[in-house]
């Protein structure tokens, strides 16, 4: 004769279920897209384009063989970031164009100040998209590196870098009060190192 087994207490089952539910709720992140933001120039051509000195333009060309030419010299992708930082942070200007926060070599043949410095990125029609994105990424990284450096030295009490602060600012969970306090600081940095990155129309292959 089989003995009657005691009934299993199912009262705690709901608790276990909720525990699991909360665990998954907390750990799952809904996938959001992310990428490099860019602003295209408007269509209408400027009637009188401003004259820009040659030394204030940093030309980066990615040709159809995916080789990178920086100021007409071939360069490895890993060196592009430092080259761009050196160019932006050069601060070679004198008088009104001097840059008092730049820590570069003050080379008179390179940019006057970060506000004047323009990075021109050109590509060929046959350039691979992934190489182009890598170069874009490195150029944005150069700007971010400089902004990080100045942000931490200007606002050491924030205990974060520019990139972290910017991320916090764009995060919808951040309170309005925090956003309002971050905004002027971010704007100062954006003014110090404005992102002047021009994407020219591609050269035709000959």
């Amino acid at each position: 004769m089989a003995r009657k087994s005691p009934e299993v207490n199912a009262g705690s089952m709901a608790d276990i279920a909720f525990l699991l539910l909360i665990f998954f709720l907390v750990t799952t992140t809904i996938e959001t897209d992310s990428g490099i933001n860019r602003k295209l120039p408007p269509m209408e051509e400027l009637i009188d384009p401003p004259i820009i000195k040659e030394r204030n333009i940093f030309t980066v060309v990615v040709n159809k063989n995916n080789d990178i030419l920086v100021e007409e010299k071939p360069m490895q992708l890993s060196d592009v970031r430092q080259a761009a930082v050196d160019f932006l942070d050069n601060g070679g200007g004198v008088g009104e164009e001097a840059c008092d926060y730049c820590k570069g070599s003050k080379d008179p043949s390179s940019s006057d100040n970060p506000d004047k410095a323009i990075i021109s990125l050109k590509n060929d029609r046959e350039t691979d998209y992934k190489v182009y994105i890598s170069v874009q990424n490195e150029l944005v990284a150069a700007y971010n590196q400089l902004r990080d450096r100045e942000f931490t030295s200007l606002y050491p009490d924030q205990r974060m870098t520019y990139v972290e602060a910017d991320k916090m600012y764009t995060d919808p969970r951040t309170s309005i009060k925090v956003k309002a306090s971050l905004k002027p600081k971010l704007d100062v940095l954006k003014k110090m190192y404005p992102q002047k990155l021009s994407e020219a129309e591609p050269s035709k292959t000959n």
Partner: protein
Amino acid sequence: MSKFKKKKDGDLPAISTASLPDIVFMLLFFFMVATVMRDNTLMVTNTLPAADQIKKLDKKDRVIYIYAGKPSARYQDKYGDQPRIQLNDKFAVVGDVGAYILSERASKREELQNVLTTALKVDGETNMGLISDIKQELRKVNALKINYTTRIGDYTQNK
């Protein structure tokens, strides 16, 4: 002699199913939260390049998507293996991009129409020529805010 004599046969007591609804609801909630609605099926290969200096594209209602890349294997007989643009569920040519942007823009709420971003989800193997053409089209319709959608990673992965 008791009227309520307990049966002493070998029946096992039934397992309580009271918690089954909880479990089902748990699963339901989990999938509700974790599922990302995909509004259009991809007809192109879409291996995004990697980048690490990126910004999040948070509000989905402010984004217009443009896909580009080589047609997927099952479409290659019909459409060839050259990179193409996909708008919504259809393959498109460069000339369609402008009209697509305008119609998408018109379908959004009025207060959002000026803050729209165009997300370019382009396969890493695509030539820049196609992207430049798209960019020209976007400039024509004044959709100047773009986002090169990437996956998170170091540039060395773009080999």
